[in-house]
């Protein structure tokens, strides 16, 4: 086992190095999201801080869905939780998401899958103000699966999100 552990470590180190090389730049605009906790990638004081531009620079995901808080179907655009966590090299089990008004909810890392929730920053192509539950709103594709139309999922759909703490 030990003999094979070393080459494996070598591979991990070799592949991890470029990730550090892509370390986050510091935000230039207003910080709208701060990710703290067990991260591989940080930019400011052990946290990863994002302005809108930085989030928009990440691969964006767009889908249409209705929600229980809005009327009709709307188009939501944002970065998927999966993409974000991957970008930050998150290793934890749970994300504690907290809103501007300090409303907090735990989202298990297992929710972060492809086709899963996004951190939406645009609704119908427009950025969202605090009055419109912006600037970040965790949206699940409710219409895509009945599993997402549950009370638990609704409670995890936190709006006016500004902090995520990755918990071990």
């Amino acid at each position, binding site marked *: 086992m030990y003999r094979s552990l070393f080459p494996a470590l070598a591979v991990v180190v070799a592949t991890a190095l470029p990730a550090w090389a892509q370390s986050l730049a510091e935000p230039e605009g207003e910080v709208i999201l701060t990710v703290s906790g067990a991260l591989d990638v940080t930019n400011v004081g052990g946290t990863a801080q994002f302005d809108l531009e930085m989030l928009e620079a990440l691969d964006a995901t767009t889908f249409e869905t209705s929600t229980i808080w*809005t009327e009709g179907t709307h188009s939501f655009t944002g970065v998927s939780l999966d993409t974000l966590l991957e970008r930050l090299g998150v290793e934890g089990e749970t994300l504690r998401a907290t809103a501007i008004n300090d409303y907090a909810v735990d989202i298990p890392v297992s929710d972060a899958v492809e086709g899963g929730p996004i951190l939406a920053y645009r609704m119908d192509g427009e950025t969202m103000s605090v009055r419109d539950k912006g600037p970040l709103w965790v949206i699940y594709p409710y219409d895509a699966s009945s599993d997402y139309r549950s009370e638990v999922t609704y409670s995890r759909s936190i709006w006016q999100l500004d902090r995520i703490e990755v918990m071990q």
Partner: protein
Amino acid sequence: MSNLKASPVRLRLLITLLLGAVALGVTLYLSTAVVRDLRLLNSARSDNVQWTLSQAEVEFLEYDLHLNTSLGNLDPDLRTLRREFDIFYSRINTLRQASIYSALRDVPEFSRNLRIVQTFLDRTVDTIDASDTALTGALPELIERAEAVRPNVRQLANSGLNYFAEDSDRRRSNIAVTLMQMAAVVTVLLVTLLLLALYLAYLNAQNVRRRAEIVQASERMKIVTGTALDAVVVSDAEGRILDFNAAAEQIFGYSAAEAIGADLGGLIVPDHHRAAHAAGMERMRVHGEKRVVGKGRIKLEAKRATGEVFPVEFAIQSAQTDEGEIFIAFLRDISHRVKAEADLVAARDQALAGEKAKTDFLATMSHEIRTPLNGLLGNLSLLRDTKLSARQARYINNMDTSGKLLMNHISDVLDITKYDAGKLHLRPVQMNISTLLQDIIDNQSGAASANDTTLDWGWIGPPADWIHADRDRIQHILMNVIGNAVKFTQAGRVSVQAEVLSAPDSAPELHVTVSDTGIGMDDTLQSQIFDDFLTGDSSYDREVGGTGLGLGIARRFVQALGGGIDVESTLGEGSTFLIRFPITPIAAPAATGPHRRLRSGELRPSRVLLVEDNEINRVVAREMLVAAGHRVTEAANGKVAVDLAQNKTFDLILMDISMPVMDGRTATRQIRDGNGVSARTPIVALTANAMAEEQQAFLSDGMNDILTKPLTRDGLMQVIANHVHRDTDPPAFAKDASKAVAGAYLDDLRETLGVEALRPLLDRFVTEVNDTLAFLADHHSHAPAEIAARAHRIAGSAATLGAVELRAGLIAVETAANAGDEKGMAKAIAALPAIWFVTRPQMRADRDDAPDA
């Protein structure tokens, strides 16, 4: 169990299952509803909504608090203030827009407060969004506004809470109802399940019972087939044996283990039937055609294990089972029965052959005895015509009497043989029963008076004179019974009474009662009286003699006539015989015109061809014919006769039937078919005992008449008269009247009495004369007075009938006897046979048209 039977059970089961399924479905549906309601009840959403409402108030208070804090502050945190406002704004927006609050928004209290709060927000938002200076300056006003709207925010939260409290109550009561419903449905379901369980238990019990019954029935069946004496073989449609019982094992010699599964055809069908068996099975499989199945018992052959083929009787039935059609064959080994039957048939054939041999023997013997006896009597008759001393004449008469008696006995035996062989045929003719009775009484009156017995007869009720019946047989019966009565009655009375008894539905019956005051019979004798060869035991019986066949024959004849004969008797007092038989009354036939008469003296010499193989018979017949003045040509067989008839003219051919070389029938056909000079000559058959149908055959061969043996002179003269001179001129004969007979007397009688009445008179006369001649032949042993009386009596009859010469001869005898002139009497007696020889044929000549000749 067939499908048809099972369907009600299945239907019930299906209905129960359906009911259960419906109940289950309803339960599931209600469960879902309950779960949904529970989820709704417990859902974080309602909590969340309430929390949201409280949160709205909290957020408003946060904003309000921040306003108040900022007012006194020189450097107020406007950013946070704006953030608090935005958050509250966002919250109210959510309450206004979110679909989950739509129901809540329908509550008027909530809706009103929400509008007020919204108005507040709309009025304030511009101030919040204004510059920091303007905002700072507007703080007091904002505080004022916030204070103003604060109760509304409070009410907004409260009204929401009230709504959700009521909503919760409503949901709870809904759930309670749903739960109640579910409880009811579950109860129904449980009951249904219980019923189903009970029903299944019942079905199961029934099945168990049925199974036990089937097992029992099957066991019984096994015992039945196992102990059956017949082989029971069950096969499927392919002919494979499915079952083979113990009897089958024993009969066919295969064990059940060997037989089951084997091919039926190969195992027990004999090789020569196998192709037919295979074809039959094929027909059945392909067309469903069943030729032996269900067709009852059939006899065929089967094969044992040893290869032995034996007869079987079998029946096959088919039955439908789950495994397809099966055939059940019941086979019985009938080899023993078949053998027994064959043995029985052989035994019967043997017995019949023996019986036939006996009958044939009797018939042949009778015939063979009659032929030489006929020869003897014929020769005696010829001998009588020669010159004889009185003693010789007496001896000849004795021999003649004995010979005729013997002939009668033989005829009796022949009659019995014929009757028992079923060959006795009736020959019904027109006859007068009264005349017959009178004749018989007349005939017996002599014997009766000899016994000092009175003999009388008469009709009870209206007489039935003319009937259609077998005269000869009736005469035989009556003669026998009346003769017996006379024979066994001494100094008494014999009374004969005839009566016609009519029945509405059947032919009238003639009852003839013969009562006597004779010796009578005991019961034992009565019961045997109609048996063959029965003679009484007393010395008297022996004295009267007889073969003992008389009543046996009478009984047979009466039965042949369709009647019966009975006797009642008391020993020592007398007997009464009752003879009864059906009759067919007819009208009296029209009186016949004058008949041709036969007179021996009138006979023209005829050319007669006599065909007879028996030399004695031939010689007798020849002598009789020659004596009557005819020319006779003899032939010993048919072939010679045919040759003679070809080239020689004959007036008559007398043809024996059975002869060597060529028989009489063949000869007759050849003569008739040929064109010889005698092809049309009348041919008369000579036969000993011809049956009615044989006689018909002779006539169809071309014969004209039949003459029954033994031949008599009279018979011969009769056929010559009938056939030879038929076409000649009768008056030519009539003119040449004989001096022996005065024909005018007979003619008169014929005209007054009729032929039928005259014939028996003449017959009786002939018999009486014969008897008298026999009586006179030994005149030494009779008293002269007796001889005179008898001669007188016969002379009277002779006068009546016109036998003038005979009358003269008899009167001569009477005169001599009365005068005590023994010599003269003997002389007169000796002259009588010669006279009678000439007279007698003429006395019977009037029977030339006898119907039964």
